């Protein structure tokens, strides 16, 4: 059941991350959109055209990977259940304690949960890299806000 929940969670995480795509598309980043700005200079008003800046990278990526902590929690629960399986319904822990390698028990309990967390993090890194690449390379020059930065923790925000 936990394994199914993990797989479903990974698919859901990938799906919700596409929220970036719809937000980004709404900004029409590949179109030259200008707005007129009136400025008073040298005693007279002049009108200039400036490109409309799209939303910051942080705001577009906000919360797209918010299911990652849930995946980590589910993996931790799976690890706990793995350890518990050596105590119930039988006490196979008695056998594990007679093995020469003290790490065999931990390897059996933690290998998959750790692997799963790494997979989820890798998916987030790959998708995040793709989204950042799109942001910087698909957006019309001049429409990217000044001083753009990335706050990774905002991608996990609810």
């Amino acid at each position: 059941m936990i394994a199914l929940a993990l797989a479903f969670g990974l698919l859901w995480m990938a799906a919700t991350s596409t929220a970036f795509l719809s937000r980004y598309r709404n900004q029409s980043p590949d179109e030259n959109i200008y707005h007129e700005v009136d400025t008073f200079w040298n005693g007279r008003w002049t009108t200039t055209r400036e490109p409309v800046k799209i939303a910051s990278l942080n705001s577009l990526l906000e919360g797209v990977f918010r299911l990652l902590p849930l995946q980590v929690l589910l993996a931790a629960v799976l690890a706990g259940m793995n350890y518990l399986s050596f105590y119930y319904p039988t006490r196979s822990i008695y056998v594990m304690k007679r093995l020469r390698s003290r790490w065999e028990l931990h390897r059996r309990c933690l290998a998959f949960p750790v692997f799963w967390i790494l997979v989820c993090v890798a998916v987030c890194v790959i998708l995040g890299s793709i989204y950042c690449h799109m942001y910087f390379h698909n957006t019309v020059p001049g429409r990217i806000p000044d001083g753009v930065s990335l706050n990774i923790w905002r991608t996990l925000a609810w």
Partner: protein
Amino acid sequence: MVELKNVRKKYNGQVDALTGIDLSFGQGEIIGLFGENGAGKTTLMKCILGLLGYKGEILLDGEPITRKNIARLSFGTCEHSFFPKMTLAEHAEFYAKHFPKFRQTRYQGLAEFFELPLNRPVRTLSTGQQNQVEVILALCQGADYIFLDEPFVGHDIFNREDFYKLLLGVLEPTETVFLSTHLIEEVEGLIDRAVMIRKGTIIGDVKVEEIEEQGSTLVEYVKQLYGYKSDRVSQSLAKFGSTE
């Protein structure tokens, strides 16, 4: 040789499970450990196997029992320590991988003797079959000292008798069996030595041969040791009769 020196165990810092146990046993002995429920039999075995913390000293050939030498001890328990989702064949693979002295031939022979299916998960077997699997795993690990805690629970009388004969036949001269059971009469012909434990203390440690030389039986010896009054039932029944 396994040596226990002043081994003490308390549960929750209050309940004395073992009080100053001094015991030693060498290779090739078959030892019966007897005692009433709660006497400390299982606790004693678990302390030797390092499954419970204790005070005092337990040595195996002069060395503390650690992961380096723990494989020389095996344990079959009525709590069951097999892997329920694994088949017998998978158990054999696991044991062969982790216990270099795993006895493959003995394992296959015992599984065949008890007519146990090799390719079904052990959790799908009956309780009696699961008990047989537990004992087989303990006997085939390749240990020098085999600890069996109430191994005959769930075995019918025919299986038990066959098992006693089998045990005497398969064991090598250097293998030691430390066996706790309530079936004193049945194992009398099997064991070399009887150790009696009561309220965490060893109250008797005798060779079966010595009891027989005195013209007594193990059951009589244990009754005498426990101060068992054979007329207590008739006395109680007489009291019930008189009050009604």
